[in-house]
């Protein structure tokens, strides 16, 4: 908001305050940072940021009051002020004979003041008023309009000038708008109103949208002779609702929705009338109309020394200081002792109501920079971590150590187009069928909150590929959302996920070129196993083929824990999902349900054998459809004594192996915990295993063995 130093000087000695630099520093200290300054010396214009709780500072008088309080300088009303009621009044009819005001909505309009000026010319506003308005970027229009603008920028009270002769019945009714009522405002646009809007009406129709903008029909024009000046107090929430609904943000609505000062109304009317008359002539009708709605309260509060010192953290400050600071800010002092002061809060301070508000006022003047500083004493041990965060961090650390980069993405998607292919996975992952949809999304094409991290991650992978990255390895830790929750427990709408995507030359090296270096399913599977290993032994994970449109047919798996909880999906991203993103290369992706990961079992020492192992390899041909897990189960089902482990060491398809067959080599390791095994006994066990494999799975051993 822009303020002119010259204008401020009417209320406070800005030179004594240190000129432009001094004023800048004082406003910063007061909590109204100066964002920029233009010009020099008296013609300096300050752009000041004013917090929404301080409508009273949205005027030159208000800014000057802050400067005066901060600098301990006198604060005064300008000498040229119209001052007391009646000044400038002509003879003629009393205002109550010229018009009348009726308030039908007393709680929404607590006060409506009006004065009438008759017989004005079409002259412009006084030159100084026009110059000041221009300096802060407000375009001069006419004497009556400029007078209202001038007073707004001087006192903070918005006003409106009506052409009295255009008001049907020459009277005013403050009421709610009728449903569907139409009103053309000063911007020339016709608005359709609702009963939630407050209007100023004449005998027939709405003539102004209260607190927001005047109507075009009754506005002051070059031919206007008689004007009615309005200064009122409007209910802030009502003004805000109307202003937001219609997208009409004005200087008036900005102040009214933050809370105007009902006590400022009489002076503001006088001041505006005086300015109109100064250049456009006319006569001010004697008297003014002070229509009242509900009463506004005089607010009082008291400040205790103990509270002041407690919040300030210093014994250096006393009641004397606080009282004088408050007084300088316009608070009226009541009963005062060494330990307590009672005050009446100024009517222009809607932000103040309680003791701590007074503490802030006193400390603002005292200066936050003078407050001491120290660490709060330790009271009890902290360091508690939220358990799922610990899981997330461990996953992230493992992934980063495995060569993946953490990515983050915005959670805005279109459930249908972005996540449709993931439906099978979402169902397995416990996501509800309904997405959470924003009513005011950033991008209308992405109104839903994501239910899976995968589409966002694949988008990121695609962007990397498109600018020439040969290897992509990304992961994301984040929240996903769906409708299946309890509105009273918003946390129930979200769950936590970890996802990764890998593609391209993940193991590239000059010594192993070509396809060997490209990511494949087993990279993704191994990474998933390794990521989950702090909580679940990879041997305890159950992997089963999974059919989901987002993954290539036959190339995806669902991963469950021993207790049957779905933990993750891993697979080759489907052709459709890749084509959508113009990805030619295979991409393997996985998503882990962080909140489904079981608690880690604490480590416990297990005795190990100190006797040597005997290894035995078995090579056989088997049907390609016979899964490794079946082979493994069959080996274990034979219960070979002293078998320590069994693993697959080679698989070969191609020349020499029949169609649909594969040559598998497994390695059995035998070890006893109590003695050194004999080769003969191991051979017997191996033969038993081999017979079992032949009998149960129809594997074939080469004739020589």
């Amino acid at each position, binding site marked *: 908001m822009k303020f002119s130093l010259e204008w401020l000087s009417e209320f406070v000695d800005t030179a004594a305050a240190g000129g432009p630099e001094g004023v800048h520093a004082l406003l910063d200290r*007061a909590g109204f940072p100066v964002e920029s300054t233009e010009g020099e010396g008296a013609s300096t214009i300050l752009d000041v940021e004013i917090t929404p*709780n301080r409508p009273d500072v949205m005027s030159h008088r208000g800014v000057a009051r802050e400067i005066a309080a901060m600098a301990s300088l006198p604060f005064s009303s300008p000498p040229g002020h119209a001052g007391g009621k009646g000044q400038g009044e002509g003879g003629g009819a009393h205002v109550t004979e010229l018009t009348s005001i009726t308030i039908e909505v007393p709680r929404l309009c607590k006060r409506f003041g009006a004065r009438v000026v008759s017989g004005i010319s079409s002259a412009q506003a006084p030159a100084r008023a026009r110059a000041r308005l221009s300096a802060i970027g407000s375009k001069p229009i006419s004497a009556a309009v400029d007078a209202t603008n001038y007073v707004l920028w001087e006192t903070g009270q918005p006003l409106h000038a009506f052409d009295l002769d255009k008001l049907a019945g020459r009277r005013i009714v403050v009421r709610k708008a009728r449903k569907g009522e139409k009103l053309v405002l000063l911007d020339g646009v016709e608005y359709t109103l609702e009963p939630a809007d407050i209007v100023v009406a004449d005998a027939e129709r709405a003539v102004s949208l209260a607190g927001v903008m005047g109507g075009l029909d009754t506005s002051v024009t070059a031919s206007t002779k008689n004007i009615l000046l309005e200064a009122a107090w409007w209910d802030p929430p009502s003004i805000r609702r109307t202003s937001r609904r219609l997208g009409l943000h004005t200087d008036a609505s900005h102040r009214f929705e933050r809370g105007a000062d009902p006590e400022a109304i009489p002076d503001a009317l006088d001041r505006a009338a005086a300015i109109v008359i100064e250049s456009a002539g006319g006569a001010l009708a004697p008297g003014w109309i002070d229509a009242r709605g509900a009463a506004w309260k005089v607010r009082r509060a008291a400040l205790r020394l103990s509270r002041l010192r407690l919040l300030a*953290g210093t014994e250096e400050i006393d009641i004397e200081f606080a009282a004088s600071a408050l007084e300088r800010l316009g608070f009226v002092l009541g009963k005062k002792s060494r330990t307590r002061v009672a005050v009446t809060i100024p009517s222009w301070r809607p932000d103040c109501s309680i003791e701590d508000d007074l503490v802030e006022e006193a*400390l603002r003047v005292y200066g936050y920079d003078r*407050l001491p500083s120290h660490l709060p004493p330790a009271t009890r041990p902290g360091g508690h971590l939220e358990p799922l965060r610990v899981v997330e961090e461990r996953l992230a650390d493992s992934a980063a150590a495995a060569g993946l980069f953490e990515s983050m993405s915005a959670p805005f998607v279109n459930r249908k187009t972005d996540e449709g292919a993931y439906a099978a996975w979402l169902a397995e992952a416990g996501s509800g069928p309904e997405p959470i949809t924003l009513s005011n*999304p*950033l991008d209308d094409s992405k109104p839903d*909150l994501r239910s899976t991290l995968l589409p966002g991650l694949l988008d990121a992978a695609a962007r990397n590929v498109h600018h020439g990255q040969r290897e992509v390895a990304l992961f994301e830790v*984040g929240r996903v959302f769906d409708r299946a929750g309890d509105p009273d427990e918003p946390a129930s709408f*979200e769950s936590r996920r970890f996802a990764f995507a890998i593609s391209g030359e993940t193991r590239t090296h000059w010594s192993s070129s070509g396809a060997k270096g490209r990511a494949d399913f087993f990279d993704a599977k191994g990474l998933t196993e390794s990521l989950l290993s702090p909580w679940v032994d990879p041997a305890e994970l159950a992997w089963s083929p999974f059919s989901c449109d987002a993954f290539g047919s036959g190339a995806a798996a669902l991963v469950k824990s021993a207790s049957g909880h779905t933990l993750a999906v891993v697979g080759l991203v489907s052709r459709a999902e890749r084509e959508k993103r113009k990805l030619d290369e295979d991409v393997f992706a996985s998503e882990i349900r962080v909140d489904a990961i079981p608690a880690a079992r604490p480590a416990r020492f297990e005795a190990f054998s100190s006797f040597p192992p005997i290894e035995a390899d078995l090579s056989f041909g088997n049907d390609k459809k016979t899964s490794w897990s079946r082979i493994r189960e069959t080996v274990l089902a034979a219960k070979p004594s002293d078998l320590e482990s069994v693993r697959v060491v080679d698989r070969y398809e191609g020349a020499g192996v029949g169609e649909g067959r594969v040559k598998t080599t497994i390695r059995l390791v035998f070890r006893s915990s109590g003695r050194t095994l004999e080769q003969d006994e191991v051979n017997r066990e191996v033969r038993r295993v081999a017979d079992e494999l032949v009998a149960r799975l129809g594997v074939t051993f080469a004739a020589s063995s």
Partner: protein
Amino acid sequence: MPDDPIGSVLAAFREEAGRGVGSRAEFERLKGKYLGREKGLVPGLFAGIRDVPAGERGAFGSRANAAKQEVEGAIARLAEELQRREVESRRAAQAVDVTLPGRFARRGSLHPVTIVRRRVEQIFLRMGYSIADGPELDNDRHNFELLNFPPEHPARDSQDTFFVDRKAKSPLLLRTHTSPVQIRELTRRGAPLRIIAPGRVYRNESVDATHAAVFHQVEALVVERGISMADLKGTFEEFFAAFFGRPTKVRFIPTFFPFVEPGADVAAQCPFCSGAGCPKCKHSGWLELAGSGTVHPNVLKACGVDPEEYTGFAFGMGLDRVALLLYEFPDLRLLLDGDERFLSQFAREA
């Protein structure tokens, strides 16, 4: 017996040894043939001394000794030569071009916001804070109402909100700040309390180099007996000193947040120019990094805490902007783009 056994042995040896030995086996054969204890030709000369006339035995003996020395010397030289060749060939077999790239497992990295978040967390954990968490999708009650934002208050304008269902009694929304965690934790755990709550927040603003609709904050809340503005100031001084690695001046200026009273904007003296003014602090010498204040009594009451018994302070700080300042990247949008050219630059930080 040849006329001159010594001469012919020597001649044969000279010829064979002169051809050199190709392998250790050849060498051993040559050595055995001439010097072998049982059947070696040179020892054989000494055995043949009996057949030499007595008068010539002296001369024969010294010639045989000379021949033995010659053969032994030559064999030793061959052995050396062989040894040298063997070492050489072993070296050649295991030699590598040490300048070729190693089979290096590429190290990934955490996201810069994660790195900054963890740094902040570590500092507060050391100061006795616990880490709390709350939902990103929350309701109006927790995001605004209980934080002393009255309905239709213009203070809400500064936090453009994504709503899920505006008409609900307490509409669901994406939290605009991490402050709702204050409410949840204080209500659940009561005072005394000392927590930080890092997390993701959302504002419905148009996105550009310096504005994001999705970003991250860390919230702090301390509610204990006797907490003052001085505790807030001291905490920030300690935090900035730890974060920037050197004592840092802190500036507090009054401001307004509905949930604190008094409220303060917190700026750190720019650690990049020591306050002299640089592009990072827009030549002001200060970096505005957090909003803070002592907890408003209405907030304490809403959480069931007696504001006469306990006071507290709270602050919130944006992590994305801190990351941007710290790592000197030009555009906040890089944070949500997943570009490995960007993400890979922070590997050494994590």
